[in-house]
């Protein structure tokens, strides 16, 4: 039997962060990952091509600081412009607050775009304040309460500093839907399509669904810049892994936790599938909440809690499609090598793409985000996120269904990139059911659990479970299903680790 201060289950982004942080605070930590590599959902690879996550929106500087990584991440982040693809060739190039047409002429809604970017980035910064702390309440210690109180007060003060009209507008916009917010400012087209696509990426929602402005702002909390990690998502994962290793954390891959062990109402360690027992007073799990509860034994959770966990909505809607190309595609006036392409020609299109997913069908005309992670390669990969591809596809995700998804994706992109089909030499597909199976997160949802108001803050992942502590004493959740949520950001893992340290202090 091997003894640790803390065991972290799952070496996804959040597990990696939690483990490294605990180790840096002097704990003897073992990080256990079922897969052969660390990285979790973000690092999953459908085959030879790029990993699922291909861009960084909000990788948290708070995480970087807490992991002692200095002023800069040990990998390069290349900020990308976004090309909102248009079927008529009038593509829109968006670089932060600037939007222009690909031929260099002004976009008719450039001013509206700039104002929206400025406003939502400001709102995002407020939310980020809240993301960097545990949700209110939850029986924490006096000091933690004070610290958290200060943070919320700061959020409140920044709100007040906005002035009354802006504060009021914030409280309205936050609750709105992206479709109306955007179309109130510009007429429908590729630019509006881009905004609304960004608002729903990863969600089982369409832009008309109330609350989608929140998910839009969520990703803009760190300035709204989209970056490509050089060396792929593997570089990000390696950096987090290295931070843990340096702090003395043991990483055991290819090891599946079969049970979380308890004695009475206390956690005592874990048993691996191979029968090995590792003991620790503290266990953090980045596996999905219901999965974690099952590993612990449902008898540790009252009926109410179990019901809540079963009701947690986590229907993935995004599939990964990697296209191997004979050479990079070209678009006049656009440097595709340093661009993110988004095919969402209008907000209406995005909403329409959402419709079939409600009935277990894939979109025939999906929303696509496309990036070349390694544009310098002779025959580069084009990495696509294809939405909506519902986890619970009618008839199941057969090989034929996956093939069809790849064809649909190629055909759809060809509406703006006519030479694309001729360039594709092979394709690989990974659908939400596979993502779920590979990470133990039912539904393969981007955020492990839908990020809507009813599953947010103290309600994430369930009412009464919003403070990382979960079931028996010493057990914590630390994955994206906890506050504040997913993306390659690391805050769930960080907040959970801080909470565990706080409780042991």
């Amino acid at each position: 039997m091997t003894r640790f201060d803390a065991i972290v289950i799952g070496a996804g982004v959040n597990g990696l962060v939690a483990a490294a942080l605990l180790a840096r605070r002097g704990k003897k930590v073992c990080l256990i990952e079922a897969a052969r590599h660390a990285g979790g959902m973000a690092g999953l690879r459908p085959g030879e091509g790029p990993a699922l996550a291909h861009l960084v929106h909000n990788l948290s500087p708070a995480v970087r600081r807490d992991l002692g990584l200095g002023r800069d991440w040990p990998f390069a982040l290349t900020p990308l412009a976004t090309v909102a693809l248009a079927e008529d060739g009038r593509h829109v190039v968006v670089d932060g607050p600037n939007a222009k047409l690909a031929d260099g002429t002004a976009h008719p809604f450039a001013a509206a775009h700039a104002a929206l970017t400025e406003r939502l980035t400001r709102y995002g910064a407020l939310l980020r304040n809240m993301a960097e702390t545990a949700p209110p309440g939850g029986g924490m210690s006096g000091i933690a309460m004070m610290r958290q109180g200060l943070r919320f007060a700061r959020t409140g003060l920044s709100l007040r500093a906005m002035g009354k009209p802006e504060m009021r507008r914030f409280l309205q916009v936050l609750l709105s839907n992206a479709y109306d917010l955007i179309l109130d400012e510009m007429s429908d087209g590729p630019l509006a399509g881009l905004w609304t696509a960004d608002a729903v990426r990863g969600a089982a929602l369409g832009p008309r669904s109330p609350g989608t402005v929140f998910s839009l702002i969520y990703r803009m909390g760190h300035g709204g810049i989209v970056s490509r990690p050089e060396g792929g998502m593997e570089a990000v994962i390696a950096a987090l892994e290295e931070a843990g290793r340096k702090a003395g954390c043991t990483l055991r891959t290819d090891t599946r936790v079969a049970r979380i062990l308890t004695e009475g109402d206390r956690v005592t360690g874990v048993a691996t599938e191979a029968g090995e027992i590792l003991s620790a007073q503290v266990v953090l799990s980045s596996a999905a909440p219901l999965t974690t509860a099952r590993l612990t034994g449902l008898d540790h959770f009252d009926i109410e809690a179990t019901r809540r966990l079963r009701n947690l909505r986590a229907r993935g809607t995004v599939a990964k499609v990697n296209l191997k190309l004979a050479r990079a595609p070209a678009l006049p006036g656009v440097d595709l090598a340093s661009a993110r392409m988004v095919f969402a020609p209008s907000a209406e299109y995005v909403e329409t793409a959402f419709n079939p997913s409600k009935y277990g069908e894939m979109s025939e005309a999906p929303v696509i985000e496309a990036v070349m992670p390694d544009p310098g390669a002779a025959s580069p990969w084009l990495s696509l996120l294809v939405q909506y591809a519902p986890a619970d596809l009618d008839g199941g995700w057969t090989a034929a269904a996956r093939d069809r998804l790849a064809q649909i994706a190629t055909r759809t992109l060809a509406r703006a990139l006519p030479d694309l089909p001729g360039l594709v030499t092979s394709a690989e597909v990974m659908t939400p059911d596979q993502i779920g199976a590979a990470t133990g997160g039912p539904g393969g949802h981007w955020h492990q659990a839908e990020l809507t108001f009813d599953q947010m803050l103290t309600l994430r992942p369930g009412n009464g479970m919003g403070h990382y502590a979960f079931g028996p004493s010493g057990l914590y959740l630390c994955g994206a299903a906890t506050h504040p949520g997913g993306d390659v950001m690391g805050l769930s893992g960080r907040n959970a680790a801080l909470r565990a340290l706080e409780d042991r202090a």
Partner: protein
Amino acid sequence: MSLNATYDVIVAGAGHNGLTAAAYLARAGRKVLVVEKNDWIGGAAVSRSLHPGWTYSNCSYVCSLLRREIVRDLDLPKYGLQVIPYEGGATFTRDGDYFAYYSDHHALHREMARHSRRDADAYQRYAQAVMRQCRFIRPFLLRDAPDPASLRPRDLGEMAYLVKKAHGLGPRELGETLRFWTMSIGDFLDEHFENDLIKAHLAGSGIIGTGLGVYSPGTAYVLLHHYMGDIDGGIGAWGFARGGMGAISAAIGADFEAHGGTILKGAGVEKFLTKDGRVTGVALEDGKVFKAPVVASNMDVKRTFLTHVDAGDLPPEFTRAVERFKIRGSSAKLNIALDRMPSFPAAPAHASFLRGDLHVSQSLSELERAYDDWKAGRVSAKPYIDMLIPSQIDPTMAPTGAHMMTVFVQYAPYDLAQGSTRSGVNWDDAARRQLADCVLDQMSVACPDIRERIVHMEVRCPAEIEREVGLTEGNIFQGELTFDQLFFNRPVPGWSQYDSPIKGLYLCGSSAHPGGGVMGAPGANAARAILRADGVRMKGYAA
């Protein structure tokens, strides 16, 4: 009727809320004139006879939300108001069965168990959860919505009340409340029930009048909006106003007139007159002018400020906020005079549930698809219908032996798509016939002989509800009930307390907090705000 040139207060619009505001003000001794563009009063709470012998509740058709405090304050029973509760309802299946809803607990359990034993057992938990939310929200309906950005004592006081109430729930229940307010009715029902038919039956109230689908976040609140009323203390119960919904407006109007108020019909307001940022009166379409230092508009916020006020009189940010206000038409209605009771072959003889609300939607996904049609500008192929035959309970609605049927339809778009255009003008006779046909097809699931029973039928599409009642786009609530348009956000942030940037100009209709339905609350609350500005405390339970 002798008219003066000046009044203390003018109310523009004799909808039930305008009349409620007027009645409270008249009771407080104000000299009040109500001007109404139609030749009748009531707005969307109206009874009209369009075919000799039959009376229709042309728009709203059932009553529950009307605040009992207002009924008492305005002595409405004295003016003939009588609300008769109905019990139960049913959803008919396409294969000749039905799910019946009974208010009797045992009967309901038995019927639910016939479809799903598990659901029958789950119902109590569901009903309790909804009831707890109703109890929580009810006290807020007759209070002001605090402005969270303000430090005025009254706002802080209202905020403190909210915090106290929320705190009183305890953390667990507060969490449930936040969840309930923000989730979709579909998800909420999926958490409790397994049977498609039962879920479809219960979901209807979550989408009535709204431009959202059963799976849109926020529709659980819409359900609450339909459950938070009561009849004779029975929370969530609905009933018929004897003589149709117009009886409510008529009673409020009668109380108003009994307290010295004047109603001028056929008197559409052309313009709210202002001077130096203050309202001074109204100019009518026929050129008449009436003066008053206070004017309350019963029209929706868009019509009030974008059509009848000079843009130059308003701060541009306010105008922009009003332009952004979402007020989408999504409902239609059929009112039908029947020669006799239609047959419902699936129902047992003399089934009591036939006196309640009848539906034919089979599942949540059928309802969601109906919403998708609406988004695309089409009348739903299989719309949600809420049909009732009030003449079974209220014989004044039709000749002896004959009947009257009211059929509410969700969804019908205001901006109907035709070719490449989407516009209210596309609602021509052909489009309305098509709407009626599609609704009658749906109804035939329950009563196959419906087409043979029709003596007269009124088909109301959103464009026409707009034209007649003045509800912009035909939106039945004078504005969507989404969280960005409720409470302190209703109608626009910073102006949730009935007043406006033009001094003396108030809103008293459903665009204001707490929103639409035949409730009277916006009218009563507006009257309270008007009196408060004079330093007077309103009398009555609603104060």
